[in-house]
C-alpha cells in the first residue's frame, strides 16, 4: 500500500508545484496510514531529489532512460504504471498542469482506476473516497466519489500548501520495461516563448487608466505584467490621449476581456470600461478615490496612488516569486 506522486522536473529542477504535490501525497498517505512514494523521470541530481523528502516523501524512485527527451506520453505512462504496481500504490497523484493532464488519464486506464481531476483538497472521506473539485469552470464545486479500488487524482496548482515534513527519503533507481512502441512520438524542437501575452488570451491582465498620469509612466506597469505573465490593457481615455496603443483599449468600444484576474490601476471604473471587464473572474483595483465605482466591481482594493503602490507591489511580487 502507498500513495504515489509523479513529480515533473524542469531541466533537472523541481518547482513549487512539485513540492505541493509531494506534500499532498504525504498528507493523504498519513490519512490512509501509509507512505508517500515519488516517481521522478529523467535526469535529476540526487541533491534535488532529496528535497522531495523534505516535503514528506519516504521513497523516491528514479527512472532514467536515455531514449527519454521531453514528454512522451506512452513511455511515461508505462513507467508510472510499472512503478505504481511495484509500490502497490492505491492512489496515484499528479499535478493538474499540462503534463499531469496528459499522463493521469492514461495511467488511470492502466490501473483501472477511477479518476478525479483538478481536486483542490484532501478527501472528504476515504470510505467512500470522496474528494472536492471545481466544476462548471469555477462556477461551482463538485464532490466526486471514486468507487474503484485504485484511484488517480490530479491536484489543482496552488490549492494546498507545501508543508515541510522531515522524512529521510530513500532514493532507488528503477529500470522500466520499455519497447520502441512506447516512443511513437518524438519531440523535434522546443521553443521558449518570449512574445508578449495576447490581451484576449491572457489569464492575467494588468490595466491602467488616467491615474497613470502620462505616457511616460508605464514602465512599472509593464514590469509587473512581465512578472505576472500578464497582458497589458488600458482605458479609452488613455488610448485616446495616445499614451498607449488602441489595441490595448478595453471596454465597451474596445476589447472585451475575460481573464482570470484583472488588475486595474488608476481606473475609476466608468461603466463603459466595466462593460468590457465584467466577465473577469477576479478584479483587483488600486485607485486614489475610495468612492470610485471600480471598487464596486472589485474583489480586492487598495486606496492609494498607483505611482506609490506599484513599485512596492513589484518588489513584493518579486520577493514572493523567489520562494
Amino acid at each position, binding site marked *: 500500500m502507498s500513495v504515489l506522486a509523479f513529480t515533473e522536473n524542469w531541466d533537472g529542477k523541481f518547482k513549487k508545484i512539485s513540492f505541493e504535490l509531494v506534500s499532498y501525497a504525504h498528507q493523504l498517505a498519513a490519512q490512509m496510514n501509509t507512505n508517500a512514494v515519488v516517481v521522478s523521470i529523467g535526469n535529476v541530481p540526487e541533491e534535488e531529489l532529496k528535497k522531495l523528502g523534505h516535503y514528506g516523501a519516504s521513497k523516491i524512485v528514479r527512472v532514467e532512460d536515455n531514449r527519454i527527451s521531453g514528454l512522451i506520453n506512452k513511455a511515461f505512462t508505462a513507467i508510472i504504471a510499472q512503478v505504481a504496481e511495484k509500490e502497490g500504490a492505491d492512489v496515484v497523484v499528479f499535478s493538474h498542469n499540462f503534463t499531469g*493532464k496528459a499522463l493521469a488519464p492514461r495511467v488511470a486506464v492502466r490501473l483501472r482506476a*477511477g*479518476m478525479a481531476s483538478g481536486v483542490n483538497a484532501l478527501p472528504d472521506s476515504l470510505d467512500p473516497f470522496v474528494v472536492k473539485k471545481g466544476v*462548471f469552470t469555477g462556477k461551482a464545486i463538485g464532490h466526486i466519489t471514486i468507487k*474503484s479500488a485504485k484511484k488517480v487524482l490530479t491536484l489543482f496548482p496552488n490549492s494546498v500548501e507545501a508543508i515541510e515534513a522531515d522524512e529521510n527519503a530513500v532514493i532507488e533507481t528503477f529500470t522500466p520495461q520499455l519497447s520502441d512502441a512506447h516512443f511513437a*512520438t518524438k519531440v523535434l524542437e522546443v521553443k521558449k516563448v518570449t512574445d508578449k501575452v495576447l490581451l484576449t488570451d491572457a489569464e492575467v491582465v494588468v490595466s491602467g487608466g488616467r491615474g497613470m498620469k502620462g505616457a511616460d509612466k508605464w514602465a512599472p506597469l509593464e514590469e509587473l505584467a512581465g512578472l505576472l505573465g500578464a497582458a497589458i490593457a488600458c482605458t479609452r481615455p488613455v488610448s485616446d490621449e495616445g499614451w498607449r496603443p488602441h489595441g490595448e483599449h478595453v471596454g465597451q468600444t474596445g476589447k472585451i476581456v475575460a481573464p482570470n484576474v484583472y488588475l486595474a490601476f488608476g481606473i475609476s471604473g466608468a461603466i463603459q470600461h466595466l462593460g468590457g471587464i465584467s466577465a473577469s473572474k477576479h478584479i483587483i483595483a488600486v485607485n486614489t478615490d475610495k468612492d470610485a465605482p471600480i471598487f464596486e466591481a472589485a*474583489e480586492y482594493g*487598495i486606496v492609494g496612488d498607483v505611482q506609490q503602490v506599484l513599485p512596492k507591489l513589484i518588489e513584493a511580487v518579486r520577493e514572493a516569486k523567489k520562494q
Partner: protein
Amino acid sequence: MKILICLSNVPDTTTKIKFTGDNTQFDAAGVQWIINPWDELALTRALEIKETSGTTIEKVTVLTVGKADTEPTLRKALAIGADDAVRIDAEPKDAYQVAAQITGFVKEQPYDIILCGIESSDYNGSTVGGMLAEFLDSPSVSSVSGLFLENGQIRLNREIDGGQEVLETMIPFVAIVQKGIAKEPRIPSMRGIMMARSKPLTVKPAVAADELTGFTAFELPPPHAKCKMIDAENVGELVKVFRNELKII
C-alpha cells in the same frame, strides 16, 4: 485518412449554474446546449486540414456519447461541415465509462486521427482523451495548439509551461487539443444547415462499461462579497492573495 472528433454536449458558457435534488444534480431546466468550445475548435481544425490537403482526408466524423437529446449538437457539427455523426446511446456519467464507449466504437471502425478537447466546460475533467488513447494503446499528444498534415506526415505543436514543443507522431494517434488549434469556431452556412439534413447520423448501442466515479453532491461558491480593502502600506497582503487565492504566482 479519417478523422474522428469526440464532442461533448455542454451547457452554454453563459448559463447560470443551479442544482436540484438537494444539490445532487445539475439543473438542466431551460439550459441551452452547445458543442464544448474546445471540441468545436478541434472540429474547425479538422475541416481546415481536410479542405487544404486535397483528397488525403477521406472523412471527418463527429461522435458523442449521450442520449437522443444530444443530437442537435451533432447536427450542428454536421452543419458546420462534418461528414457524418455517431451517437453512442449511453448516459455519460464518468470519464472511464465514456472513454470505454468510444473505444468500443473505434475498435470496430478505426480512425487515423482522433481529436478531443482538452477539457469540457461542465465537469472540467481533462480526462476522456487520455483514457481513450490508453484504451486504444495509441500515442497521444496533449495540450496541442497546432496540428499540421504535410506530405502525409503529422506535426503538432504542444503547449508546455513557458513555451511550445514541436512533435511528430505515428498514425493512428489521439490529439488532445486546446485554444490556438484553430482561430475561432465556424458559423454554419445556410448550405451547410441544409446539407446537414441528409448527412448520416448513426446511433450505436452502448457497450458494457464500468463507471468508476460519480458526483454525489454540488455546492455553489459563496456570493460575491464586498470589496475587501487592503492598506496601501501593506501590499504584501495583496501578494498573498495573488499566491494563495488567485494562484497567479
